[in-house]
């Protein structure tokens, strides 16, 4: 019998459901899988999936349109996504973009008439060390130059790139990670299971003073303790590998080099709080890491480090699965991440309740960053005392920093807390910088006059992304880039974040044109504070930081434009 297109779609979707599942929580994996089959998710497919998952098709549409990497209409065979983070812009992304446009004869957001290429900008893809970088479908190309992208396009035209090994182009990142490199595999897990009660594991972490490395800095021991105390038949450990903060790539490097330590940390957490299910939430941009991670998981299962009765400990069962994100920076926020895991739009929840009480599927849930979990493995293996011996009074231990921008030695650095910005610049050979962005776009823009500030929770205690801006950099261009990012990545719930960031971006453009009155600039500064204080999650609470900072530190530059951009 001749199958119609829709019958075929139905059959494929039914088949996918048998392997992926037919629960509401599998909505996003299903949409991605359907897209893998057909290149996009058709209106019919959305309705059929909705019908199968017993939800309104309109809601599927709402979810599908939320995520950047779910195509609602057919796109080119090769989808080229050029990273738009500031490190890429500084290293020539704009000329690469021009080359791409000229080679393909289309603008960004368009598809070539022959259906071969779609050209898009994308938010940071975690390759800032080798900027500029782009993805062609799931494959990453870095250190791009215009001649290089011309060659890549030609290769795609001949379709030879399909034979290219997927990991090949990511390349090596300069990484100085002493503690990680010297970690004895599974020492922490073995020690915990053999010698420690769950409460002791939590105690060790509490004493170590480890704080969440994703940026929020919540004490890890306290979080684990709350989850351990929460009563439930089911608990979840989620590893947040949705590393979307522009300028950060340390989690990619950790997952590439030390995935075992991350999984060990998750298993430790499972042991400590009594959870049986672990989920690695991997950002779509890191799809190229997935085969490697699946292999590591399988090896761990073989070695009885995952599964039933781990390390022969009776009743200790824990396993980990990988769940792919679909392109939304805000899903790095833990409650938005949980929403997307439940098959919904990645919109942060109202808190309380917090995930440790009511998280995934209403169950107690720990969401920890990749680095937090890997570091927890180091701590339990070597003891809290070792860890507290490093760092400062209020900032214990070490931290991984992703350094990019105007410096000679970008890369991932494992450094003790307590260094000044100036010391860091000396280390990475970026001395003489005009400003340094500490903690990613949501962090602080530190001007040269404040390079004596300390990196630690007592001062600049924020995430691990460091972007160095040299003397020739135009701070309005920086602010424009940041705000474009936040405008694109806002989930759109809170009024201030949804509309306010756009107004700030418009304001930067007025400043660029030289038509922003002082009065209006003051209105926008006032608005910045209101956006920060009224937003539900960290995105809106931090997005105006750059606007406030350029006004505070670079007012002469933004008003009078005395320097010319390099």
């Amino acid at each position: 019998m001749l199958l119609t297109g829709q019958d075929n779609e139905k059959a494929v979707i039914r088949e996918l459901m048998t392997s992926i599942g037919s629960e509401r929580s599998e909505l996003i994996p299903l949409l991605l899988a359907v897209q893998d089959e057909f290149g996009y998710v058709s209106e019919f497919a959305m309705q059929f999936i909705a019908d199968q998952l017993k939800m309104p098709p309109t809601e599927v549409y709402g979810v599908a349109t939320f995520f950047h990497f779910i195509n609602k209409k057919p796109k080119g065979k090769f989808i080229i996504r050029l990273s738009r983070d500031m490190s890429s812009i500084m290293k020539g992304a704009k000329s690469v973009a021009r080359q791409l446009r000229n080679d393909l004869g289309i603008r960004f957001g368009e598809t070539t008439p022959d259906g071969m290429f779609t050209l898009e900008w994308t938010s940071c893809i975690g390759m800032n060390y080798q900027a500029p970088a782009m993805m062609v479908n799931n494959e990453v190309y870095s250190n791009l130059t215009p001649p290089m992208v011309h060659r890549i396009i030609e290769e795609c035209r001949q379709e030879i790139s399909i034979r290219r090994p997927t990991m090949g182009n990511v390349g090596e990142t300069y990484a100085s990670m002493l503690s990680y490199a010297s970690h004895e595999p599974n020492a922490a897990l073995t020690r915990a299971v053999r010698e420690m009660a769950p409460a002791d594991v939590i105690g060790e972490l509490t004493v170590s003073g480890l704080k969440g490395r994703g940026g929020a800095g919540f004490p890890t021991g306290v979080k684990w303790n709350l989850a351990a105390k929460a009563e439930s038949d089911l608990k979840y450990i989620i590893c947040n590998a949705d590393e979307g903060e522009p300028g950060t790539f340390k989690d990619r490097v950790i997952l590439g080099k030390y995935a075992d330590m991350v999984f060990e940390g998750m298993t430790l957490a499972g042991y400590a709080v009594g959870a049986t299910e672990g989920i690695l939430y991997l950002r779509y941009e890191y799809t190229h890491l997935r085969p490697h991670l699946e292999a590591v998981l399988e090896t761990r299962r073989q070695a009885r480090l995952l599964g039933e009765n781990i390390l022969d400990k009776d009743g200790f069962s824990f396993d980990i699965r990988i769940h792919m994100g679909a392109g939304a920076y805000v899903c790095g926020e833990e409650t938005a991440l949980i929403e997307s895991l439940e098959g919904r739009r990645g919109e942060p929840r109202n808190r309380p309740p917090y995930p440790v009480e009511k998280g995934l599927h209403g169950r107690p849930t720990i969401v920890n960053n990749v680095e937090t979990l890997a570091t927890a493995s180091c701590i339990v293996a070597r003891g809290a005392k070792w860890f507290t011996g490093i760092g400062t009074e209020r900032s214990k231990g070490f931290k991984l920093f992703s350094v990019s921008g105007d410096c000679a030695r970008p890369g991932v650095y494992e450094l003790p807390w307590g260094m000044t910005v100036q010391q860091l610049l000396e280390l990475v050979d970026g001395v003489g910088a005009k400003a340094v962005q500490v903690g990613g776009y949501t962090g602080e823009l530190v001007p040269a006059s404040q390079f004596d500030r300390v990196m630690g929770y007592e001062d600049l205690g924020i995430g691990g992304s460091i972007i160095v801006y040299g003397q020739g950099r135009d701070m309005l261009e920086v602010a424009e880039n940041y705000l474009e990012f936040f405008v694109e990545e806002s989930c759109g719930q809170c009024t201030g974040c949804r509309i306010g960031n756009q107004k700030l971006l418009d304001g930067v453009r007025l400043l660029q044109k030289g038509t922003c009155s002082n009065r209006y600039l003051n209105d926008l500064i006032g608005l910045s504070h209101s956006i920060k204080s009224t937003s539900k999650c960290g995105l809106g609470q931090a997005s105006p930081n750059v606007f406030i900072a350029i006004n505070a530190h670079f007012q002469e530059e933004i008003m009078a434009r005395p320097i010319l951009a390099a």
Partner: protein
Amino acid sequence: MNTKPMQTHPHRHTAIVPGPDAAMIDLTIDGIELRVPEGTTILDAARQVGVRIPTLCHHDDLCTAGVCRVCVVEVEGMRNLQASCATPITRSIEVKTNTRTVRNARRHIIDLLLAEHYGDCNTCKRNNNCELQDLATEYGVDFYRFGHPTEPKYVIDRSSPSIVRDMNKCVLCRRCVRACEELQGVGCLTVASRSSRAHVATFANKPLANVVCINCGQCINHCPTGALTEVDQTDEVWAMIDDPTKHVVIQTAPSPRAGIGECFDLEPGTPMTYQLNTALKRVGFDAVFDTNHTADLTIIEEGTELILRLYKALVEKDESVKLPQFTSCSPGWVKYMENFYAGMIDHLSSAKSPQQMFGSLLKTYYAEKRGVDPAEMVVVALMPCTAKKYECNRPEMTSSGFKDVDYGLTTRELARMIKETGIDLPNVPEAPFDDPFGEASGAGVIFGATGGVMEAALRSVIEMVTGHQVEDFYDHANILPVRGIEGARMAEIPITEVGPVPDLIKHLVPDWEWLKGATLKVGVVHGTANAQLVMEDIKAGGPFSECHFIEFMACPGGCLGGGGQPIPTSPEIRAQRAKAIYQIDESCAVRKSHENPVILQLYEEFLTDGPCGHISHHHLHTHYTPRGKFIR
């Protein structure tokens, strides 16, 4: 006799309310000390002590969203402001609701909303009844600080026969999305896309007429602005009234008379029945009739159909007959069935809704009696409902040979017409309904409240079957077990004896003894989200599958909470309207459908082969269309 309340629709994001054994917590709000159960939101606590906190995305009918951020307050010890609607009180706190930071933040949020809000207040149906406008006034907005759109971003969607969507006026509060999903279980609307591109959308942004919408209008009732409004037909009706060749009559449903006073600044629940008659005549209608007559007629027809179904199913064991029988007077509910349970539409009573029965009778029975040409007649229906606009346009609704009902006007539209005429409704003298119909029964009136159709049906069924006065079983004929506000409820009515059965229906079945000792099981459901639960229960063979007859109303509270009623709506307002409806019922001389002399006369003069006979089938019954959920 027992009632079994059922859980209402289980929401994912539940409304934030304290648990049953919550500890008491002391706190202060603006220096006022108070004690509340743990888990109470700051907003609710503030309301308890009379502190007003402005809101926009919050609605008492809906679960918490916490997205507009207008209700932010300062909580001592917290770095950021907290949305009072979404923040449960879990410890002793000090709240400040009117600090400079708070006022600035609220003003900024209002400024931002206005910077995206395209439209002119003077030309907006919600002018002077708009929450955004109120906020702008309250916070002294005297210029557009962050600009104001000069061009529309969206094309106005006028495709639906019931609802107009102007997304240029949308403030993304998501109340329509939540109403459609939580109250109605339809899920026609969602938030699509993200960031500044986020917008309320139908499936794939298709026109409303092309997607699964039941036209109930709950989105309109819950919208704070003019983004969602009814399709306005007042100009068309004016044109008909002004045309001297047309004989323009209006039938008025029970709920508008209980609600329209709100459009004239009266307290909710002030009945306006007879003032409304005067106003309608002054507006220019040639005659004013009470839809309750055909509500009474619906009871007789639907009740007869039920007896026939029961006889065929229980006595003749005919398995093709579907039970429970569902009421069919709510057009939103009918469309819901056609879309979501297309395979079960045989459960719906074939009886038309009172609006459509009246339309057919007016253009036949009345036209002849009055000596007017039905082709020159215009039948207008005053309804609490936007789905009635869709219903009167259904192609099958032409049994008079013409379009049976020409226009369905909502309470809000009619209030505008009355205002336009310069009539101060609360202060006009009373006037009766017109001949030949005159006064109807109280049974028809209570159709407006959830449980009313069932109560009206039971008043007649009990008397006609048992031969006893219903007052012998229920004080003042108030059948309390079917009243209430639970989303879905059941009641059992034992039939202890039978006969003598009145002649009107006696011939329907060979004997009536089989009913003796039987227990009639009935259900009452309102809000289609609750209907969804009941339908799934029936499919699964649960308690509702054992019912014989179930009343379904699409809207929360029944018709009095309809999508065409005055805005705002809330559980309290609907309770007041219900009180008015039961009050009108109590004051009626006739309170049982089968005692309505007009109905009895109709069966003698016009529907001469009795209830569910051929003539009544032609004029008073209809059929349904399985539509399904998939959109091409």
